[in-house]
C-alpha cells in the first residue's frame, strides 16, 4: 500500500466506483484525455472509454442540467466543474432542480449526482480560481456538501458521496491536492457522511474546521500543545447537514470554541456552527466563540492570497484568547 496524494486518492476512488458500479459516469470539461486540469480523472478515459468519461462542451449550465437528466434515468454522474469559481452558471440547476427533484416528484425521480470541484486559494492561480463558497450550497435544502481534508478522507468520502442516493457537492481544496501523502487502502470502503471526524482529542479548547484550513488548524493544535494547551480538532467534513452532536459534545467538554474556515466570514458555515452552539450549548461556553476566517473581501490575486487566508498564527491567537478568557 503506497503513500498517495489527495488528488491520487480521488482518482483511485473514481476508478473504484466506476469499476464497481456501471451506472457511474464521469463528465465535465477536459476530464477525458487531459485527465482534468488537476489530473483528478487521469487515466479514466483510457480505462473506461469515451462513453463513461465524457468531455463536455464549455457550458456549465447544461453540464449540471444533463447530470440531472442522467441521474433521473438511473445513472450516477460524477460531474466535474473545473473550478468552484465556474460553478455559478450551474447554480440554478443545483438549487432549483438537483436539490428539489426528489421532493418535487415525491420520490419518483431523484438526483444521485456528485458535483465535484476544486476549491480554495493558495495555488497562485488567476482570478476565480481561489473561491470558498461552500456556504451558498450549505444554505440550499436537499443537497449535501462534503469537503475532504486528507487523502484517506477524500477517498472514503468520495466513495460514499457517489454511493449516496442524493446530490452531493464535493469540494476539493486545491492546496491539499499534493500537499501531503498518506497510505490509502483501495478497499472500496466509504467513510460515513453526515458526521464530523475528531482528528485530535483535547480538553481545553475545541478547534472546528474543514478543507484546507484543517492543515493550519492541526499545526496550530500542535503549537498550542507545545504551550501546554490541549486542543481538540474536529474536521466537519460534511459541511451540510452538519453533525452538531459531535461539536456540541466537544464544546461541552472544553468550554471553548474556535471555528476556522477559509471562506469569507459573513454568513459563512462557521456562523451556523457558532449560532447552533449559542442556541443549544450556550451554557457550555466559558469564553466567547471565536471565528478565524478570511475577511469579507474579494479573494485577492496571488500577491495577497497569503494575507487573505487564515494562518496558523491567527488560530493559535484565537485559541489563546479563548483559553485565557476570564
Amino acid at each position: 500500500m503506497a503513500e498517495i496524494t489527495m488528488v491520487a486518492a480521488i482518482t483511485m476512488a473514481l476508478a473504484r466506483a466506476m469499476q464497481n458500479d456501471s451506472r457511474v459516469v464521469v463528465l465535465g470539461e477536459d476530464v477525458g484525455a487531459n485527465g482534468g486540469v488537476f489530473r483528478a480523472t487521469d487515466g479514466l478515459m483510457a480505462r473506461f472509454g469515451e462513453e463513461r468519461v465524457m468531455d463536455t462542451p464549455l457550458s456549465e449550465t447544461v453540464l449540471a442540467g444533463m447530470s440531472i437528466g442522467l441521474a433521473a434515468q438511473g445513472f450516477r454522474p460524477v460531474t466535474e466543474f473545473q473550478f468552484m469559481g465556474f460553478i455559478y452558471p450551474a447554480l440554478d440547476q443545483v438549487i432549483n432542480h438537483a436539490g428539489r427533484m426528489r421532493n418535487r416528484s415525491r420520490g419518483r425521480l431523484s438526483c444521485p449526482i456528485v458535483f465535484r470541484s476544486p476549491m480554495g486559494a493558495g495555488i497562485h492561480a488567476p482570478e476565480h480560481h481561489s473561491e470558498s463558497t461552500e456556504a451558498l450550497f450549505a444554505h440550499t435544502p436537499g443537497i449535501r456538501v462534503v469537503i475532504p481534508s486528507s487523502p484517506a478522507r477524500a477517498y472514503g468520502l468520495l466513495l460514499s458521496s457517489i454511493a449516496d442516493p442524493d446530490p452531493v457537492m464535493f469540494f476539493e481544496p486545491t492546496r491539499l491536492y499534493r500537499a501531503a501523502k498518506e497510505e490509502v487502502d483501495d478497499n472500496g470502503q466509504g467513510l460515513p457522511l453526515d458526521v464530523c471526524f475528531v482528528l485530535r482529542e483535547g480538553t481545553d479548547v475545541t478547534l472546528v474546521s474543514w478543507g484546507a484550513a484543517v492543515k493550519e488548524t492541526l499545526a496550530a493544535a500542535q503549537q498550542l500543545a507545545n504551550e501546554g494547551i490541549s486542543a481538540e480538532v474536529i474536521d466537519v467534513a460534511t459541511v451540510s447537514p452538519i453533525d452538531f452532536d459531535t461539536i456540541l459534545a466537544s464544546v461541552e467538554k472544553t468550554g471553548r470554541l474556535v471555528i476556522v474556515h477559509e471562506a469569507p466570514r459573513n454568513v459563512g458555515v462557521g456562523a451556523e456552527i457558532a449560532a447552533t452552539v449559542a442556541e443549544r450549548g450556550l451554557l457550555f461556553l466559558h469564553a466567547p466563540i471565536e471565528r478565524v476566517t478570511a475577511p469579507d473581501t474579494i479573494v485577492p490575486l496571488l500577491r495577497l492570497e497569503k494575507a487573505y487566508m487564515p494562518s496558523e498564527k491567527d488560530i493559535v491567537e484565537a485559541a489563546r484568547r479563548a483559553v485565557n478568557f476570564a
Partner: protein
Amino acid sequence: MTASPRGDEARTDLSQKSERIVAEFKVAHRQYLDAAGNLVGEPPAFARDRDTMISLYRAMTLSRIFDAKAIALQRTGQLGTYPSSAGQEAIGIGYASAMVDADVMLTTYREQPAQIWRGVTLTELLQFWGGDERGSDFSGPRQDFPVAVLIGSQATHAVGVATAFKLRHEPRVSVCALGDGATSKGDFYESINLAGVWRLPAVFIVINNYWAISLPREKQTAAETLAQKAIAAGIPGLQIDGNDIIAARQASNEAIERARSGGGPTVIEALTYRMGDHTTADDASRYRKEELVSAAWKLDPLARARTYLVNQRWWTKDDEEKLIAACREKVDAAVTKYLAIVPPSPASMFDHLFETLPPSLEWQRKKYLGG
C-alpha cells in the same frame, strides 16, 4: 428599445475572390391543414385514418374543456395560479401522440394537452395546480418529468435523458417542449448545442405562441424564425403550423423517429397563439389588443380539426355534442375527486428531502413538527 430588422448590409460583394461561401441553410415551413380546415398538399397516411384523427380530436377537446374548468376553479379560489393552454392543443397532442410510452417527456407548465395524452389524470393536474406536490407523482409514464416552471431549464435535463438513452443504446427519445420566450435562454442554446455535437436522441418542440407574458415574439429575437436557432447547433430546424394537428403530429413523428434511429436531434418551431392571459394572475389587456386575439381565433386548431373531420364525413353534430357532454362529465368527476383529496401533512415537507433524513434534519423535524 424596439425590434430591429436584420442587418442585410453584412452581405458583401461575392465577385471578389477574397470571399467564398462556406455554408448554406434553408428553413422550411410545413402545413397540411389550412386555417379553413382544407388540405394543403398530400397529408401523411395517419390523416386518412378515421380512428386516429378522431382520437386526436377527442383529446384536443378534452384539453380545452378541462382548461376552461381549471380557470373557473381558480377564479373561485379552488385552485392556485393556472396557465391556460387554450389554443395550443394541436401541437401538444401532436407531439405527445408521436411519442411512445418509453420515450420521456419534459415540458413547461402549459402542456396540459400533452400531459393528458400521456396519461396524467385530470385529478392529478388539478392537484398539482392546486398546490400539492403529489400531483407530480402522476399516472403518466413514470419517467416523464414534472412540469418545469423555470423557463428553458428542462431542456438541459432533456439532453441528459437523451444521453442516458444513447449510452444504453436504447431506442428511446427525449422530447422537450418549451416556449418562444425560452429560446432566448442560454439553457436552450447550450442544450441544443450539446444535443447536436453528441447527436443525441432529443427533439425540441418550440411552442411559439407569440407571447412570453407581455413580450411579443419580435421583441424576443431578431431571428426571422425560431426554427433557425437550430443552425447555431448544427442540427435540423423546421417551422410548422402548430395549429394544424396533422403537421404537428407528422413533423413530430419524423423528428422523433429520426432521433430514435440515430439520426440526432431536431428543433421544431410550432406557430400557435396564446389565446388566454399568460396565467390567471395575468391581465393581458394591459399589453395586447383584443383584435389580435379575435384574429387568432380564426386559426383555432380545434375548429380546424373539426372541419376536417366533418369534411371527411367522419363527424356529425351529434358526435360533437356527445363528445362535449362526455368531456364535461369526465372533468366534473375529476374535480369532485380533486376537492375530496386530504391536504398533505406538514410532515411531508421532510419526507422527500433526502432518501434518508440526516440526523440534524431529524432534529429539525422534531423541532418543527413536535413529537
